[in-house]
């Protein structure tokens, strides 16, 4: 399935890459030929036009730049997205009473997150996890944990598709947790840019 989707993506990218310069070339060639024949007849004198093959190269280069820009935007967007929600993306597993363990499951981990910068978050030396919860008075409070991830610390792959972060919670009942925020922390204790904020219902 992954191979098929990759192949289809590559095919679409290749088609776009070859079709757009071809269309540009076709349109510009017609205009250029008209200009060339006007110049030939000596009716007018005008500026020198760029040769069609140069325009095609420019179109191709522009395509590459736009594509790279889109990828960069997507990466940033995914990485710093304030909300990644939905049970099909991330779920907070129900915790048995008394265990006080929260498990963040990332189904489709390999597919969904590798583009979004989650690699950077999950493979950070440390992970800061902020749990927002409703306290006894009904107020919204938060708790911050810093957990080591290196050497597969709190993070492990349950299968080749599912990545799991396990956090032990002592202070609060995990049932009261309303949202979870993940942020990668580097060796100096600084946040890594590609933070992820995950909301749970």
């Amino acid at each position: 399935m992954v191979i098929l989707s990759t192949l289809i993506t590559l095919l679409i990218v290749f088609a776009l890459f070859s079709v757009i310069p071809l269309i540009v070339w076709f349109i510009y060639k017609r205009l250029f030929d008209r200009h060339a024949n006007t110049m030939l007849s000596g009716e007018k004198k005008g500026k020198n036009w760029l040769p069609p093959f140069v325009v095609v190269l420019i179109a191709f280069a522009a395509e590459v730049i736009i594509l790279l820009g889109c990828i960069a935007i997507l990466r940033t967007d995914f990485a710093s997205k304030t909300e990644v929600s939905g049970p099909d993306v991330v779920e907070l597993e129900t915790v048995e009473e008394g265990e006080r363990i929260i498990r963040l499951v990332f189904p489709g981990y390999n597919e969904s997150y590798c583009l979004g910068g989650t690699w950077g978050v999950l493979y950070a030396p440390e992970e800061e996890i902020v749990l927002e919860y409703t306290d006894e008075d009904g107020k919204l409070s938060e708790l911050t944990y810093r957990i080591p991830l290196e050497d597969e610390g709190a993070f492990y792959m349950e299968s080749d598709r599912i990545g799991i972060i396990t956090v032990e919670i002592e202070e609060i009942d995990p049932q009261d947790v309303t949202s979870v925020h993940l942020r990668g922390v580097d060796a100096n204790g600084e946040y890594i840019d590609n933070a992820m904020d995950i909301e749970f219902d």
Partner: protein
Amino acid sequence: MNIKMMLDPDDPMRDALQGMGITDDPASEYCIFRKSRNVGYIQGRKEDQTFYVDVKTLIFIESLGHDIILHTRDGAYRSSERLKSLESILDPGRFLRISNSVIVNLKEIKRIESSVFQRFVLHLTSGDRVDVTRSYYYIFKEKIGI
């Protein structure tokens, strides 16, 4: 003495040379031409006969192996000249070399078509098509002012 005379038929120098006993021999190693003026005629052969081809009637000149073919409105003629020497004696305002093997009469170009990559295809009034190759692309472009 024999000399190749790259002179117009009505050039007075031709008579003067012939008066001195010098005959026109296209095969001669010696050659005479007017430095300050472009020639109006080129010697060409057709069916074993030699003609003076008016350069105004030339559409394009093509080099095929060792042969030079003068394509005119009246048909094709063979010439013993080299393409490079023809290029130097023809009017640069009217004729332009567009590839290693072709000189074209600019007034006989009917239509220009740009080709993929660095090439032009020229459609001539005779119906022939000749290519402007990559080496001559910008020379041609500059000349036409495209």
